[in-house]
């Protein structure tokens, strides 16, 4: 006789070990059932297929004059395409990495065109402050780049964070040159 066997109040023999096994097995099946039903209820809040599909924008950058900035809406967020002046490019390139909170060279923030060449005059980035998502104002701030009016973050002419509460540089979207002058974002 196993030591998990004993008699209950009605004098019937009860196998506690067997009962425990049934409890745990039933509980496990129920938990798996609840879990698999809960997942769709949670996952429905994610991005819907049409939101994911509305993915890309094409822009002809030859129309942007030097010193001008184009804002295009991509995935509900503005993308800044700035034709930088020579002064802005040199400022961005001559910045010491040591002074950057999120160190990145200006070249690392560019994507080569169809000829495999970097085009420093064309800066493409998501125009959203990395602090809480406001849209920074151009040609402003202490570093000649962008300034976020919400909580006072300063970005330089490469869109890198220099001063203020934002933790990282403005993001570079996934983009490519599909011809000499056309950029496809997304």
């Amino acid at each position: 006789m196993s030591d998990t066997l004993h008699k209950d109040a009605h004098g019937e023999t009860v196998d506690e070990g067997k009962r425990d096994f049934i409890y745990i097995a039933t509980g496990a099946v129920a938990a798996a059932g609840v879990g698999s039903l809960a997942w769709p209820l949670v996952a429905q809040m994610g991005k819907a297929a049409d939101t994911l599909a509305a993915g890309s924008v094409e822009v002809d950058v030859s129309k942007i004059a030097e010193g001008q900035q184009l804002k295009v809406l991509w995935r509900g967020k503005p993308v800044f395409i700035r034709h930088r002046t020579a002064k802005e490019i040199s400022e961005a390139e001559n910045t010491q990495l040591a002074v950057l909170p999120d160190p990145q060279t200006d070249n690392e923030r560019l994507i080569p065109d169809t000829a495999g060449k970097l085009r420093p005059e064309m800066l493409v980035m998501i125009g959203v402050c990395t602090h809480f998502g406001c849209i920074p104002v151009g040609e402003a701030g202490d570093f000649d780049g962008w300034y976020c009016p919400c909580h006072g973050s300063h970005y330089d002419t490469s869109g890198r964070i220099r001063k203020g509460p934002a933790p990282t540089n403005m993001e570079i979207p996934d983009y490519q040159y599909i011809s000499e002058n056309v950029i496809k974002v997304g």
Partner: protein
Amino acid sequence: MSGHPSTYEPKYAPTKWLDQRLPIVRMGADFMTYPSPRNLNYWYTFGGILTMLLASQIITGIILAMHYVPHVDMAFESVQRIRRDVPFGWLIQPMHAVGASMFFLAVYVHMFRGLYYGSYKAPREVLWIIGCLIYLIMMATGFLGYTLPWGQMSFWGATVITGFFGAVPVVGESLQQWLLGGYAVDNATLNRFFALHYLLPFVIAGLVGLHVWALHHVGQNNPIGITEKTKKDTLSFHPYYTVKDGFAMVIFMLIFAFFVFYQPDALGHADNYIEADALKTPPHIVPEWYFLPFYAILRAVPDKLAGILLMLGAIIVLFVLPWLDTSKVRSNRFRPVARKFFWIFVFFCFILGWCGAETPDDMVFTVGERMVDGEMKPMGLNFTWLSRIATFYYFAYFLAILPILGMVEKPLDRPDSITKAVLGDKAHGAAE
């Protein structure tokens, strides 16, 4: 006094029949005759006022939902249509919007009252925690509702607040996009915010039920914080406190009505009359007045994640307050030192509110100027530093002052009973 004996006697056959099957009339009757401390002052009427406001918000809210369209192309216009074209919409929409402000006004008075009279101390910890939970859900409901008119402040407020979730390490971005249902605040966000804004008030109503249940189980606190001992220390809830609460509600409604009829937009922000624009951030984003102190705490720290944690901490600390305050004496009436620190705390809460409304780099006051990088800059105290001082006191009050004070402060002598406190020696003589 928990579980006071029921005095309800059903008089008629149908009420007797019902009482044996579902004693709901008995429950109501016992509620009305609940023995309350005889010394409750007007600060104790805000529970009733809050119940009235919750009912008002739910009724006006259901009506507004019949006319409102939760779609990015139509939301802004539908709210304007409610105010201009829907019969009595000019009245019902401001009642709801102003009502939210009044709700927070009343809840802050209610909470400060609880803090002053030590209403969170044993055996009322659970009562207090349910209250904190109600406040937390109120904040969520207020935020969700503010998004619905789809003005510039709605949109950018929603962007900033949901951005908090993006600061969570590793999973932040996925979490934020899951909440938004997209890459940015958009139609999916507006739709779910509407659904949740409709749901949460009913969750609050359920929690209010638990709050009152806990209140009646442990008994009400009172201005001297001494538990009632005899029947003489109490009064029946009706008519004594129904009348007192009713009078306070009428006075409160006067203030409410002043805003609804004369200043329906005074507590809002003009930028919310501009339709949401995903390409343009307003120059000065501020939350509604009732969130300003927390906004100031958020901005007091230069680090994103630390700012959010500190802001959350400011609310979480309220939940554990019953275990932080080490004093056995409930009411600040008998704690001369704690009382001073309490009023400094109230003062700094207002200071935090002021800091939240101002631009961090602006100066509170200046003392001369000095040369920085070839430019003359004013010297003195700016709002960032003022909010840091106030934030420091906010946390010090809960985490250092209250724990230490309970051990070192010598409280004043307390009266033997509520009756004696109210009637003095006359009661003492009568009791003997």
